[in-house]
């Protein structure tokens, strides 16, 4: 694929449709725009960074890029974990961080219209002030809503509330050729034509750029308790999860953490878990509108955990106690990265009843390859976050062994009926693995969809599907 090169004339044009203080080139481009949260997958300096402030600006930039075949990488807060917001083909990084206004509250229909640069925590906090709740909660709360929609982020509460897709009502988008379109509207259901809104959710900015998003909200639960559940063995810990799938109570979150992670969080980040002497832990969350309801759910959950072999069940019923537990969980990625020299990760998702088997397989592979695996994540929806830690293994050997181990894990996931990524997305880091996993026919179908939106392959090229060399 031959791309055009951005010229001074092009830069002048971009400045003319935006503003000089929002266009950066050369050394003025901060390093932050060259990577996401996984710089291990490679950094890349774009030719231009432009911070858009409106749909019209995005449209004007895309028109220029389309006509001149300039690659454009849309970017939110840059907190992704698959290299999705990294301009691997150079060109323009189109930052939406300054499009960060909450435009409308629809308190009758319980929706809010936001610009893509609004941070997840900003929407969540603003909703809370109105006694409303925006449930998706990725580990990184400083992620942008736009980025969350484009990766269909899940997070801790996906077991109870579902993923970001469940909260996208409609969207305004700019197509690669600059056309502004509206996908769906403020309706509760819709069978009018292809559901493009749902196609765009999770498309990682490869099909169009969302410039306005109407997000669904729900009434704020009045009570939320967390249970910290210690186990002696991996089998009994992970084996608890399927028991909840079949039970009448639904935890909002079921998180899995091994002891080593708690110790690393304390050692490197100073975050102390109130209990840390057991080998494995589950963290469960229950929400409700009355105290009695939440207490009843916790009592029942405790019983289920004990039956599955839990050593004890600890109650977190105050802000301080919940914070003590969840702040450790939220620091997992940081703690793992701090504990090792280099790392790689995957977020394979398997059917919920296959999670125990998969975690045990990964654990065995860790020993076989001599690579330390830190396995944690959203056990309740079958989504594991597996971090491969280099520690003192020679770099070359780690780089050689990592793809082999990854291939084994993906093959196992496929055998179990799983998928490559549960919520982090493909980006460019996992595009090769996705190709192997999906096979040629599926990738051809993806290419067809890509071409329907972006026949010039200018929007976030190399992400999800690789650009064919021609």
């Amino acid at each position, binding site marked *: 694929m031959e791309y055009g090169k951005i010229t001074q004339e092009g830069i002048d044009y971009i400045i003319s449709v935006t503003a000089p203080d929002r266009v950066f080139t050369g050394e*003025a481009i*901060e390093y*932050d725009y060259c990577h996401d949260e996984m710089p291990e997958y490679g950094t890349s300096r774009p030719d231009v960074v432009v911070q858009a402030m409106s749909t019209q600006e995005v449209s004007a930039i895309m028109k220029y890029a389309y006509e001149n075949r300039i690659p454009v990488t849309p970017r939110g807060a840059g907190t992704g974990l698959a290299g999705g917001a990294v301009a691997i083909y150079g060109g323009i990084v189109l930052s939406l961080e300054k499009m960060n206004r909450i435009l409308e509250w629809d308190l009758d229909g319980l929706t809010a219209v936001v610009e893509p640069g609004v941070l997840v925590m900003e929407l969540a906090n603003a909703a809370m002030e109105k006694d409303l709740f925006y449930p998706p909660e990725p580990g990184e709360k400083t992620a942008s809503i736009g980025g969350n929609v484009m990766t269909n982020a899940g997070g801790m509460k996906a077991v109870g509330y579902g993923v970001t897709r469940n909260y996208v009502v409609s969207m305004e988008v700019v197509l690669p050729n600059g056309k502004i379109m509206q996908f769906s509207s403020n309706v509760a259901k819709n069978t009018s034509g292809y559901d493009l809104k749902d196609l765009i959710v999770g498309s990682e900015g490869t099909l169009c750029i969302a410039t306005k998003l109407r997000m669904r909200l729900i009434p704020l639960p009045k009570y939320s308790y967390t249970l*910290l559940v210690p186990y002696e063995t991996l089998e009994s810990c992970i084996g608890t999860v399927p028991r909840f799938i079949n039970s009448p109570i639904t935890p909002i979150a079921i998180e899995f953490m091994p002891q080593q992670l708690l110790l690393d969080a304390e050692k490197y980040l100073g975050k*102390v878990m*109130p*209990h840390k002497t057991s080998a494995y832990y589950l963290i469960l969350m229950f929400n409700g509108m009355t*105290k009695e309801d939440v207490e009843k759910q916790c*009592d029942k959950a*405790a019983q289920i955990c*004990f039956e599955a072999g839990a050593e*004890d*069940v*600890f*109650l*977190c*019923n*105050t*802000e*301080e*106690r919940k914070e*003590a537990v969840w702040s450790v969980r939220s620091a997992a990625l940081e703690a793992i990265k701090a504990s090792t020299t280099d790392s790689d990760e995957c977020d394979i998702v398997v059917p919920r009843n296959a999670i125990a088997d998969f975690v045990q397989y990964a654990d065995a592979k860790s020993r076989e390859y001599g690579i330390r695996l830190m396995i944690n994540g959203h056990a309740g929806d079958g989504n594991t976050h597996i971090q491969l830690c280099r520690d003192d293994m020679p770099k070359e050997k780690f780089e050689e062994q990592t793809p082999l181990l990854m291939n084994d894990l993906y093959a196992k996931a496929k055998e179990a009926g799983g998928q490559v990524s549960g919520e982090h997305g493909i980006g460019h880091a996992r595009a090769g693995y996705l190709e192997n996993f999906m096979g040629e026919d599926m990738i051809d179908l993806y290419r067809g969809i890509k071409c329907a939106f972006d026949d010039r392959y200018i929007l976030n090229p190399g992400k999800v599907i690789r650009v064919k060399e021609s």
Partner: protein
Amino acid sequence: MKIVVCIKQVPGTNKVEIDETTGVLKRDGAEAKINPYDLYALETALRLKEKTGGTVTAVTMGPDQAIDMMKESYMMGVDDAYIFSDRTFAGADVLATSYTLAQGIKAMGDFDIIVCGKQTTDGDTAQVGPAIAEYLGIPHAAWVSGISDIDGSGIEITQEFVNIRQTARVSLPCLITVEKDIFTPRLPSYRLKEETKDREVHILTFADFADQNKAHYGLKGSATSVERIFPPETAGSQIFLDGTAVQKAGELINILHEKRYI
């Protein structure tokens, strides 16, 4: 060793409104929880018990609703719990509260050490602990941030002051108030909930106390009265810095220097 720990119920959130006319916290319908500072006292008491053997008894002054909090203390490993509850005790200030607690502890019998939190999140006086010790005529140490040893006759403690750290040995029986973070508080356990589900919470009333002079308790026994209570005005303001990351960091450092934060 007989260890006593004083705990108090406080509003469950920091969003409790104040009735500006009466100067009273609007507690109706508000969730209550154990004063967060008292969790450190509870943890300290339980660790002392683990080290020396014996029992931990939790005490509180307040209405019977405190029973939930006391049951929760059983879920954390407390052996026995007492609520000092009587209409006579209502409206107590620091002085009357400390006196009531001291009387109640006396009525319970002998003890070796009393552990209190540093302060409460609703009253914030940090005086009740030391005042109890004064009423009981026992030595006390505040701001305890560490315990290095305890035996049948005394306890060796570390205290954090503004400029110095002091280690001291205090003879038993005594009272200590402990700093936040002396130990990480444990969480309530469902295993202990099951084990203690039939354990009673004792209620002591005015009639159980040695001093039968009502003028020493509650509103009558209080030396202070609150004239006005109001939420402080918040003086938060934001500054936005422009420029590159390096420029912004430099400017931030200048501002922090000017304001003497660094």
